[in-house]
């Protein structure tokens, strides 16, 4: 365990998310620390993706979505009345489950963000540095003008990571980034995450417990709470701790059952 004081990037306090009348996830208290990888794990429908998407206000795009409780970002209320979600998303980037490169060249995929945000600097350098950070430069330096759809799935996902890095975010959210990839591509991306956490804070949602065990400094376990009445399925945070503890001696029986494969 680290002994230095950890810097809290996000602090969720009794946070709940509703979609219309349906409570999706309730009562989440979770700190997320700087330059660490935090994994959110749990069975389907436990609200881990919902929590992730509330960290860069992507949930705002879903009609009827409502976040209550507090989401503090470096101590500031991220859902305060004068917060611009667009500015939030500049600082908190996101990589999606399925690689979603733009239908453009590899170069333009990276350049889109910096250009749109009006970032200063030499675009060639920005593109090269982003591709290098995503360990993609050597693969694609000779075909920057080629369409991004010609890349393999793993390369496409690393391109999406490079694209997120190019706008110089503070945090990178990853929503099951490897679920559509083969084991070798998965390994490359996990390797990349270790590099990236030196500069960024990473929050990853994963279905794959081994992945969480491999990459995450801290792990938060969510599950579905059916105790609120007939047919209700509300996501809830069971516990969170340093990953080693979560996988060896969690304090909650449900966590132990999940990480040892008894359910989920």
């Amino acid at each position, binding site marked *: 365990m680290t002994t230095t004081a950890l810097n809290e990037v996000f602090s969720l306090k009794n946070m709940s998310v509703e979609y219309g009348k349906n409570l999706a996830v309730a009562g989440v208290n979770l700190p997320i620390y700087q330059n660490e990888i935090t994994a959110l794990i749990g069975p389907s429908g436990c609200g881990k993706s919902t929590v992730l998407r509330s960290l860069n206000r992507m949930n705002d*795009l879903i009609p009827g979505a409502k976040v209550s409780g507090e989401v503090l970002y470096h101590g500031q209320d991220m859902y305060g009345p004068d917060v611009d979600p667009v500015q939030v998303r500049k600082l908190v980037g996101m990589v999606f489950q399925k690689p979603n490169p733009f239908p453009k060249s590899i170069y333009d995929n990276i350049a889109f963000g910096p250009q749109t945000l009006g970032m200063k600097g030499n675009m060639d350098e920005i593109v090269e540095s982003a591709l290098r950070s995503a360990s993609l430069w050597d693969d694609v330096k000779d075909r920057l003008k080629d369409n991004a759809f010609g890349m393999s799935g793993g390369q496409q996902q690393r391109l999406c990571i490079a694209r997120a890095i190019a706008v110089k975010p503070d945090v990178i959210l990853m929503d099951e980034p490897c679920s559509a990839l083969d084991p070798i591509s998965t390994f490359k991306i996990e390797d990349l995450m270790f590099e990236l956490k030196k500069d960024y804070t990473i929050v990853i949602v994963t279905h794959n417990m081994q992945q969480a065990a491999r990459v995450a400094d801290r792990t938060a376990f969510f599950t579905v709470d059916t105790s609120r009445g007939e047919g209700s399925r509300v996501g809830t945070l069971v516990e969170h701790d340093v990953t080693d503890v979560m996988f060896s001696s969690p304090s909650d029986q449900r966590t132990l059952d999940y990480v040892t494969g008894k359910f989920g």
Partner: protein
Amino acid sequence: MANKIPRRAANAASTAAAVTRTIYKGANNKAEIQGIAFRLVLLSALSISLVMIAAIVAWALVEGGERVNIGLFTNNPSSFRPETAGYRPAILGTIQLILGVIAIIVPLGISAATFLELFADRTKWYNRIIELNIQNLAGVPSIVFGILGLAFIVRGIFDLGFVVAAGSATVAILVLPTVILASREAIRAVPSSLLDGALALGATRWQSVWKMVLPSAAPGMLTGVILAVARAIGEAAPLLLVGAATFVTFDPDFWNDSYSALPVMIYNYAGRPQEEFHTLAAAGILVMLVVLFFINSIAVWLRARYERTW
């Protein structure tokens, strides 16, 4: 000797034979006949429509083929010299009309579709009513739009008079629902992950739509516009109401003077008693068919060229 085969084994063998028999052709005659009948119905439906198209083209070729020459395009109409009369004002009128239609439907149609698909809150009742009405408008007979154009564009609010501009506006309103529906389809075909990806980089909704979604939807939208134009070229009924004169011997001016259009001119020639004018009408139909075929081919080519699987 046959009794030596145990009963159970014999049963099993006969069951197996019954099962395997069904895998051979001809085992299920009824289903096979149904399949053939079904295919025949489909083929005859297809051939009827093909024969009809072929008949029209053949008739126009036989009747008007001899009259297709440069003079057909460059000469003014004449009421007493059918052998040298041409379609010049009508062709120019149709070209101006169509350019006017495009100038109206492209910005209006694409904006309306973009708003409905990407910005309108579909849970609100008034947006649902708008959607429903656009779909209904696409099925309204064209003559109704002619009356609308006469009341509000030629006279009434806009008071443009019987000019090409009024014809353009009327036909544009007529084909606008088609353009909006096609553009919405095109936008819907763009996966939301593209929009999400742009938004997640900190682009505004407007930037994401303008730079990412609309360019990806452009080929589909263009196809819709081209098909709408093809329909607009053939429209005669609303034009008769908003003042496309059947007989004009001077070149049209977009904002002033009366004008004619190809289908209207053809209608005029076809209605005359002399045989030579009927030949002229057939030649005009050939010209229109060639233009329509060309435009539709562009639409098909565009669709095939830019079709993308995500």
